[in-house]
């Protein structure tokens, strides 16, 4: 342990602790901008400089480990002047159209400005006369360079968390800027649309493409029937934007708010999550049968396909391994295909009048909704994918007092869900849901875990492994008797690369793998409220599992509406209709 002195308060910390962390420990807040808990230390914005006694220059507190006996002043006159100057400098190269900015009120630069640069403009406007071109080529993510403060958080996110590296620093000096690899438009680089860069951007430079104006229009149009489906991880995060503490579940209030702002029907993506489990579970069993009994050459391990960021990633980076992907569409796209077929039929609606909107923790869902193959209903299956943040904005725009709303249930037909569908939102959730069902299909018994909680696949380790030995299988599945089913779960695309390299080398020991693009799974998605960090992800995950625990229905195959859709419409898992509506194919793409 080392003892240092911060603002005349002694503090004992472990070796390797930074000055910033030491200060946080005793409740002293040092402002930061380029720093993010998820990312490596950059030390480039210099907002966090502090005075170290005995040194002429100031010290970047985020980047400097403590030394025994250090004396630090966090708000001396020298620090205050520099900090004010630095924030002013950042503002001078930032196009300050705060009142028109999507991030107004949720912007770290704005927060700094409100604290440190009250008063006159000290410096000249560097944006004046410059021509900035907004890159809105991608259906998912938009980049406005006039708002960029070059903190490089997006660059580090794309490289460190995702290993995708499509965002980079270009040129130097006054021309230094952030751009895509080779300066190509965002829709022309191997961007996975995961939106982690958006979630880590401190300003409004990187945002999702926003579509809520179109939804307002549809909601106001009586000839349109707007149906909304909400992803599992939205309900544990939306509250953060509307006055609730992190991790509060607002499922019922969310449904009520959606209805109040004009949705004709509020349904649950968890329903199609349950459906995904049935289809994907059977697909896995079928592949295992082909491999073990028919000795056919099938691609194992099978990998989940719910995360559209992950799908885009594998299409670009491992285009020759696409056969490993489950052919199941993501729950969003299953929902879309069924909304304009099954739902339309049952509700006696003309599918052309249906506007199908999904609320997702994700920006990649926007790209997914726009994929040309996602028209299996004869229409664009999902008309718009909005992020959790966009829904938060819509609720704010509506003037609804969210805190006082009476919770309401989802509508029926595609609104019922199980706990298994809910946990899709957390890393390991799809795997857990799939195992709850697959094990029971094969053995007729529940998975051998207390209270159905398959703990080995839970938690925030980047790659998790588990195995279940199948014993006492039903006659139909006796080829699986004694097989040790090996599974893995990974989240964050950097970890996906490790899994894929193993598969490429033919060394993967697994049968089934869940891969999610974002750290923590969907609860840490690029479309979730900002900020998102390890602590926040943990709270959202806890909340998801709590929702599961509180449900009576916890297995996908027991969802009565799912049973009904098979009886009335789909007939059987992997059947003809399923293939047409619920399964898809993938596209080989280039690395650059």
């Amino acid at each position, binding site marked *: 342990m080392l003892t240092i002195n911060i603002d005349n308060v002694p503090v004992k910390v472990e070796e390797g602790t930074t000055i910033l962390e030491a200060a946080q420990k005793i409740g002293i807040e040092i402002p930061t901008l380029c720093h993010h808990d998820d990312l490596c230390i950059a030390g480039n914005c210099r907002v966090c400089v502090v005075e170290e006694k005995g040194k002429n220059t100031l010290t970047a507190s985020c980047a400097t480990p403590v030394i025994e006996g250090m004396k630090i002043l966090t708000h001396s006159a020298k620090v205050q002047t520099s900090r004010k*100057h630095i924030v002013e400098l950042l503002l001078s190269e930032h196009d300050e159209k705060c009142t028109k900015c999507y991030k107004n009120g949720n912007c770290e630069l704005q927060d700094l400005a409100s604290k440190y640069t009250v008063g006159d403009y000290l*410096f000249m406007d560097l944006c004046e006369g410059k021509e900035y071109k907004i890159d809105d080529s991608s259906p998912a993510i938009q980049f406005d360079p006039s708002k960029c403060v*070059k903190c490089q958080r997006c660059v580090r996110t794309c490289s460190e968390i995702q290993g995708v590296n499509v965002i980079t620093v270009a040129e130097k000096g006054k021309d230094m800027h952030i751009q895509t690899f080779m300066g190509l438009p965002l829709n022309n680089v191997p961007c996975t649309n995961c939106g982690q860069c958006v979630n880590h951007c401190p300003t409004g430079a990187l945002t999702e493409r926003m579509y809520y104006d179109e939804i307002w229009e549809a909601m106001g149009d009586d000839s349109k029937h707007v149906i909304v489906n909400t992803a599992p991880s939205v309900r544990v995060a939306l509250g953060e934007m509307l006055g609730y503490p992190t991790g509060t579940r607002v499922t019922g209030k969310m449904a009520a708010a959606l209805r109040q702002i004009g949705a004709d029907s509020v349904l649950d993506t968890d329903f199609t999550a349950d459906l995904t489990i049935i289809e994907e579970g059977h697909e896995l069993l079928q592949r295992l049968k082909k491999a073990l009994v028919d000795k056919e050459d099938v691609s194992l391990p099978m990998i989940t396909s719910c995360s559209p960021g992950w799908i885009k990633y594998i299409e670009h980076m491992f285009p020759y391994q696409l056969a490993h992907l489950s052919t199941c569409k993501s729950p969003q796209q299953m929902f879309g295909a069924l909304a304009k077929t099954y739902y339309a039929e049952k509700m006696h609606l003309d599918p052309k009048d249906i506007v199908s909107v999904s609320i997702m923790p994700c920006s990649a869902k926007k790209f997914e909704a726009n994929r040309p193959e996602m028209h299996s209903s004869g229409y664009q299956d999902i008309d718009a994918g909005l992020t959790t943040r966009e829904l938060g904005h819509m609720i704010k725009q509506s003037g609804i007092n969210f805190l006082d709303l009476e919770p309401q249930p989802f509508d029926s037909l595609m609104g019922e869900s199980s706990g298994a569908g809910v946990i899709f939102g957390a890393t390991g959730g799809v795997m857990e849901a799939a195992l709850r069902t697959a094990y029971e299909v094969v053995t007729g018994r529940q998975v051998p875990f207390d209270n159905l909680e398959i703990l080995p696949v839970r938690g925030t380790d980047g790659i998790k492994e588990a195995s279940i030995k199948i014993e006492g299988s039903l006659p139909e599945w006796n080829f699986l008797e004694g097989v040790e089913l090996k599974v893995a779960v990974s989240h964050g695309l950097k970890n996906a690369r490790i899994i894929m390299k193993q598969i490429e080398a033919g060394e993967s020991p697994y049968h089934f793998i869940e891969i999610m693009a974002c750290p923590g799974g969907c609860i840490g998605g690029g479309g979730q409220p900002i900020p998102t960090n390890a602590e926040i992800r943990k709270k959202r995950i806890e909340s998801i599992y709590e929702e599961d625990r509180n449900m009576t229905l916890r297995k996908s195959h027991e969802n009565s509406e799912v049973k009904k859709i098979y009886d009335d419409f789909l007939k059987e898992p992997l059947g003809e209709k399923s293939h047409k509506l619920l399964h898809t194919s993938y596209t080989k793409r280039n690395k650059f």
Partner: protein
Amino acid sequence: MSKNSLKRLDIIFAPYSTSPYKLLSELLKKDKDAIIQELIESGLKGRGGAGFLTGLKWKLAKEAKGNEKYVICNADEGEPGTFKDREILSQVPRKVFSGMALCASIIGANKGIIYLRAEYNFLKKDLQKEINIFEAEAKKLNLDFSIEIFSGSGAYVCGEETALIESMEGKRGEPRNKPPFPVVNGYLGKPTVVNNVETFVSARMVCSIGAKEFNKFGIHGQKGSKLFSISGDTPKGGVYELELGLTVQDLVDEFGDGDTKAVQVGGVSGFCVPRKSFAKRTIGFTGKFTGDSLPTGGSIMIFNSSRSMYNVLHNYLDFFCEESCGQCTPCRVGVQQLLLGIEAIKANNKPSSYLKTLVKLADTMRVSSKCGLGQSIANSFQSIVEEFTEEIIY
């Protein structure tokens, strides 16, 4: 101070002894700690301009744990107005290699790299020939040390040692956060000594003649000698070896054209000395940064009265606007503000009092920039603005 104390020397460029690496073979036999002690006693400081104690740097690298260590010769001579390293490398490269080999044997490295400025690629062929000769000699001396040349990509900031290392690792040439310092965590994360070309030659010199002899050089309390690159309004520009501690007046008397108005000591990141201060300012290493003595990598630019100091400053700021790596706010944005600011004052778009704001901004840049580049922009800015205020405003 006595007038005309300038003393010229000719040690660095003195011809080799007949057998090329005889001195090295003798030095290699000496006790390593004794050599470090000798270097520390000599007070030899880095000849690139930052002025870190060379003996201490080698000592720290020797003490650092690592299965592999590196010796890097910083030949990214980019400071405007310096060209001494080019001369050393073309005239006496063996002295450089000897210094590197000596350093390597002391710290326990067997790999040396010369980071050669891209513009000096024309030296590459001859240097490689010399390296081949050196490596043959090294074999005879049973010395496991090889040298290779790494060609820079043209960024000024890569003269900063951590940016140089980043660039060698194939990354953007951007300075790192310090600590850790390269002596502990340098090239490829291994302990690394990065020294200027001249430093290696001087270290060899110190070890050869001893600290005592070396300390006999120097005037006005300064110790040792170093190379100066003289350019600008002078009839005899070139590289000269001079004893440290000389006054700017001495330089002007020797090299000026009789109409010298200002001398820029230490390149664009150094200080501008006006005529009235010529006699007061000495050049050396021991003084504080802003004190009497001006630290320098040896760039001396002489301006006569035909020069507009506004244009000089404008030119410097233009240079920094290009050559800042751009990663940290005070340097990237600050220098643009300084440039725009003096333009606006000149054009009467800002009141002359705005100059005070800019001087304060330069203070912030000095204390809060990430590396020496950003920190030293204030040197030339403030010294020119304060000494030639009228020229800047009107």
